């Protein structure tokens, strides 16, 4: 096969793959604009915004988006602060067992969090944290911590220590040098971690599903699931809700694409 021909073949096959990957999305898009949508794939006879308006005008839906936002921002903020603080000694000091500690963190970041949900339920009952949004934030933050700590420490290792040394000579303490010197240089890393933890929390269904009991506290993920499980559900509304709930994830991902690829490279460069 000539090179040119094989190049054309590659273009064709990859285009076909792209089309196949889009196929499952057709339903959700068509149905969201269809005034009488079903589960079947059907082009709307008229394209209307009715479904979106209906979803937006229902206060329970708006509430679930609000709760999801609060949870996800809470987790992201906690994650950035806890990881930035923790990474400083891990990156800058010589600590006994640091290597072992870091590998333990890496190891923990690999564990399937799903397995923790039943004991987490029990733990929340014991600590009287059931149905408590702040408790959910703490739990989600903890389960994401190992991965983000690992990333953040590697980001911080990239920041040269020279500037800090100058600050120390001028009498700045460790915390100040972290805040005023290291942090500004790590904005891309901080954004990566914030976006990553926001998106993971926004998409997390299992945790709030187990740890929250009142419907009014359900975030968008759980509300959508319930919506889907309802008998005689309006599929047009379901599709519109799904699209709206996906938008933050899609927007954040597009925003983060630059940071993310940097993250990948940094993760690789710091191996060992």
């Amino acid at each position, binding site marked *: *096969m000539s090179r040119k021909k*094989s190049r054309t073949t590659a*273009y064709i096959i*990859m285009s076909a*793959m*792209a089309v196949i*990957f889009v*196929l*499952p999305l057709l*339903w959700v898009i068509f149905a969201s604009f269809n005034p009488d949508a*079903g*589960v*079947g*794939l059907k082009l709307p006879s008229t394209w209307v915004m009715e479904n979106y308006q209906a979803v937006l005008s229902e206060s329970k839906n708006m509430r679930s988006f609000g709760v999801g936002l609060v949870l996800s921002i809470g987790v992201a903020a906690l994650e950035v602060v*806890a990881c930035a603080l*923790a990474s*400083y*000694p891990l*990156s*800058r*000091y*010589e*600590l006994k067992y640091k290597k072992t500690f870091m*590998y333990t963190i*890496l*190891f*923990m970041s*690999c564990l*399937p969090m*799903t*397995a*923790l*949900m*039943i*004991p*987490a*339920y029990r*733990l929340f009952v014991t600590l009287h944290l059931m149905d408590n949004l702040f408790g959910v934030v703490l*739990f989600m933050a*903890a*389960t994401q*911590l*190992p991965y983000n700590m690992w990333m953040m420490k590697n980001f911080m290792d990239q920041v040269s*220590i020279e500037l800090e040394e100058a600050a120390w000579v001028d009498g700045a303490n460790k*915390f100040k040098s*972290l805040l005023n010197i290291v942090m500004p240089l790590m904005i891309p890393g901080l954004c990566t971690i914030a976006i990553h933890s926001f998106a993971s929390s*926004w*998409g997390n*269904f299992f945790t709030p599903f187990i740890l929250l009991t009142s419907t009014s506290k359900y975030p968008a*993920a759980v509300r*959508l699931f319930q919506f*889907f499980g309802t008998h005689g559900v309006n599929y047009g509304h379901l599709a519109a809700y*799904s699209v709206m709930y*996906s938008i933050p*994830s*899609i927007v954040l*991902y597009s925003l983060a694409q630059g940071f993310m690829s940097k993250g*990948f490279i940094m993760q*690789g460069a710091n*191996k060992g």
Partner: protein
Amino acid sequence: MTKNAARGRLLSPAGRVGDLVYRTWMLWPALVLLAIFFIGPILMALYYSFTNLALSGSAAGNLRFTGLANYSRMIKDSDMVSSIRATLLFLIGSVVGQTVLGFFMALLMKGKSTAFRRITGSCVLTGWVMPEVVAAICMYAFFYSKDSGTVNRILAVFGAQPVAWLYKHALLSVTIANIWHGAAYSMMVFQAALDNVSADTEESAMLDGANRIQTLIHIYIPQVRSTIFSNTMLITLKTIGVFDLIFTMTGGGPGGKTQTLPVYMYLQAFKSFQLGYGSAISVVLLALGIMLSVLYTRVYKE
């Protein structure tokens, strides 16, 4: 060890405990969170797996230590056996599917124009970026069993009969759903790895008259071998924990066919109210995760 940390004048040898706590205070918020909400549940899972803990009913009031009862029950539990079988099939299908498809797409996109990469890449990525519950709903409609379901519509174009995907091939359907949802991750990882394979190596292979399959086997695969390994491990670990996708699509049905370990664990704990038994299943899941993580961390170290 980093260059930074090795600098002598910043470091003092680790002193007394008080000094250590003072020097590492920045670590403590993270450590406390991990201890309560991460290590805590792991220890509780272990503990409760040896008890008769129940959500409600007569056993709920009196917690008893039942030794290995939950585990011996597990060995005889035919649902557990079929759950492990479903987990393995789902796992193997997802991991092989995502790796092969991700690698293949990365290879197809290598050296193509930026615009082409961006457009096709975005198509593949949409399924990955979406929250899992939405992905599940999209896939539910995709495999909808009546003739109006997306796949059945496509089959009809080719004159084929509609298939009741979510009843007859439920496990296959959720596996394909998971491949669709996850393949983009492998694609991105392999894209980054393949971009590092130098153009010279390919050129010389081509000049030597190697065909595409030979180039693939002798040039690409050896150069990205470590990436293939680490990516496989990471997807495996991710896949054994998948719950949202399967639970939304099928709820574990029909007839328990898509009841993977996480789904079975949930149903036992919260539908059959057997928290003790559910905890024992958590422990099995965790043990599986621990074995794989240890292996991954070991290899990562080298």
